């Protein structure tokens, strides 16, 4: 080893540090956090990260897990698949994380997860909703990918149920963006419509950063659509709402949970009012646990107008850490296969913000959220509230996982 000034400084620092903290045995448990903290998906990524930070902070204050503190290694994937791949490799090989949480974009998830699968390191996917995410490795004996977000095979039928059954619309248009997320969601919507014997009157595409939606909306209008079903992210969804205002053609928007993103609500303004979407969490203090979560979140991160940018992401981010911590504790180890085995057979229920997780996973089932858990949210007065008063009334009764819940599409790889 060449001895230069830099190594000397490092050595001095290391000596000083080890003198200050003599208990080197209790080094922290490293958990990777991956999400888009910048760009069009950032309101989800940042809210998720903040939820994660909040949970880690609480756990560390209470003494950590296995007597060790949790340490986060946060990385910004910028919603880019190739960044997600680099980060996965960095987290696994360089940072040597014990597990990872996060992933907002389905495309990034699908690209990055296989590295964790190969390294036998569990991932708690807490926001990405593509149906395929937990089924990518169905042909392998073990699957290290878990999820505590409402996947598209739940969301798409919910959206269709709301449009066709509850609100009795007959002619629906689908507008989806051209990303993995939008197009997989579009396929799920078409499948769910088919089960109701309905065919969309028109199915249109748009690109990220498109500034004009005239053609798409005119096609929907000409086809006589009574409602527009959407699968996209905030900024472009806002352009759809703005485009409707421009054309003077206003039909309800019902779509995936991204209609609750702050950058949709803010950029669409009055045009976005009334949009409805499935939500696993609405920013309302309906249980003591949710109340303390909201209060702590607002106190710690102080978001604009006391509105969490993406309440769903924050809540799911928070819960993902508690699920993981419970599994590490039960496994008594930070060994990947042992954590995975513990997750598949969690003995004690975990009280989260979204729900109380009682045996959330099994060897065959890696989805914590079932069709009975999400409710419909609606944009009202520039924030998301319960769309149905009866849902709000019973919100204090936590909806728990029901494997027999009807409404989900079956996922085939």
């Amino acid at each position, binding site marked *: 080893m060449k001895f230069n000034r830099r190594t000397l400084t490092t050595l001095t620092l290391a000596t000083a540090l080890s003198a200050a903290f003599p208990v080197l045995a209790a080094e922290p448990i490293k958990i990777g956090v991956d999400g888009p903290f910048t760009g069009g998906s950032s309101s989800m990524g940042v809210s998720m990260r903040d939820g994660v930070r909040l949970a880690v902070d609480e756990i560390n204050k209470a003494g950590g897990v296995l007597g060790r503190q949790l340490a986060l290694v946060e990385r910004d994937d910028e919603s880019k698949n190739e960044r997600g791949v680099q980060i996965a490799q960095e987290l696994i090989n360089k940072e040597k994380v014990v597990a990872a949480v996060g992933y907002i974009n389905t495309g990034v998830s699908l690209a990055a997860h296989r590295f964790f699968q190969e390294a036998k390191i569990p991932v708690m996917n807490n926001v990405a909703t593509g149906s395929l995410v937990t089924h990518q490795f169905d042909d392998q004996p073990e699957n290290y990918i878990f999820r505590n977000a409402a996947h598209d095979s739940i969301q798409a039928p919910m959206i269709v149920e709301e449009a066709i059954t509850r609100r009795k619309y007959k002619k629906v248009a689908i507008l989806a963006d051209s990303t993995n997320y939008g197009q997989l969601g579009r396929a799920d919507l078409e499948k769910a419509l088919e089960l109701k014997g309905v065919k969309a009157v028109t199915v249109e*595409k748009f690109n990220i950063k498109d500034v004009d939606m*005239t053609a798409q909306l*005119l096609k929907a209008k000409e086809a006589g659509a009574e409602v527009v079903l959407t699968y996209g992210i905030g900024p472009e969804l*806002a352009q759809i709402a703005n485009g409707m205002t421009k054309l003077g053609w206003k039909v309800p928007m019902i779509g995936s949970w991204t209609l609750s993103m702050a950058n949709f609500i*803010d950029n669409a303004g009055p045009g976005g009012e009334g949009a409805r979407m499935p939500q696993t969490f609405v920013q309302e203090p309906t249980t003591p646990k949710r109340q303390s979560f909201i209060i702590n979140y607002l106190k710690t991160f102080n978001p604009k107008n006391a509105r969490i940018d993406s309440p769903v992401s924050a809540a799911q981010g928070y819960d993902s850490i508690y699920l993981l911590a419970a599994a590490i504790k039960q496994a008594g180890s930070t060994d990947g296969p042992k954590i995975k085995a513990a997750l598949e057979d969690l003995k004690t229920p975990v009280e989260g913000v979204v729900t109380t997780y009682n045996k959330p996973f099994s060897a065959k089932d890696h989805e914590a959220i079932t069709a009975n858990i999400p409710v419909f949210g609606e944009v009202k007065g520039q924030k998301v509230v319960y769309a149905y008063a009866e849902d709000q009334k019973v919100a204090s009764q936590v909806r728990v996982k029901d494997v027999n819940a009807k409404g989900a599409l079956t996922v085939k790889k």
Partner: protein
Amino acid sequence: MLAIVSTAMQILTQLVFSGIALGMIYAVIAFGYQLTFATSDTLNFGQGDALMLGALVGLTLVGLGVNYWLMIPIVCIFGAVQGAFVERIGVRPAIKIKSEFGWIMSTIALGIIFKNVAENVWGRDDLKFPSPLPESPLHFLGANVLPMEILVVVGAVAMMLAVEVFNRKSIYGRAVVATFNDRDAAKLMGINTGLVITFSYALSSMSAAFAGVLIAPLTLTGATMGAVLGLKAFAVAIIGGLTSGMGIILGGIILGIAETTTGFYLSTGYKDVPGLVLLLIVLAVKPAGLFGKMAIKKV
């Protein structure tokens, strides 16, 4: 039957109007490419980023309580300074050593730097730019038009006219034209061609910054807004011809209408294709652009 025809007409009118509005957005950015090409045979590939900076500076000023109309001149001054900076740092050294491609890399690099700076200052989320005009649409010939869209068209045409008049009537403008015609001859005639080129960059970024605040209420504002728009504007500049003001406007309108009509009549999945096919055809058949020649005659 008549009813069907009239709704079909209405749709076409709506598509054409939206196409024109979209095309003028492209044209007003493409105009900036033309300005620098006219004096120095170089292009500012950071044009989209100049536009983005203008829009974000404008948004900050509006946030500070400055009136939209008062904010415009301030943003224009900012744009001019930014453009002069780009020329001094990125383009002049390349022109000096007669490098063929140096300016391409340096303007792209500066554009990326500006984008990164903007990401750090304003974040990377898309922000809403408050509209100075009412956001409810006007009805015109059976189609709907936003007041803001009319402002973009009027503002873009007014700006281009102002620059054209300046170039043709004022002594400074003639210096610009002379520099374009023959840089060395102009230099021998006592024109400070270096200054003229700096000036043209300032003017070009100024027009981009102005375009930024003009279109921001329609497009959402953010550090990444310039990338796609700058690229489409480049296509417009090629289609219309880099030497023709008229060509830029028509090129923009052609591309805009091609996008909206293809989206409606063909498929929204292919809406960007016809414009790019047109670009390829123009490059193959008439590399100077559809209206390239005409402008040379005018001068």
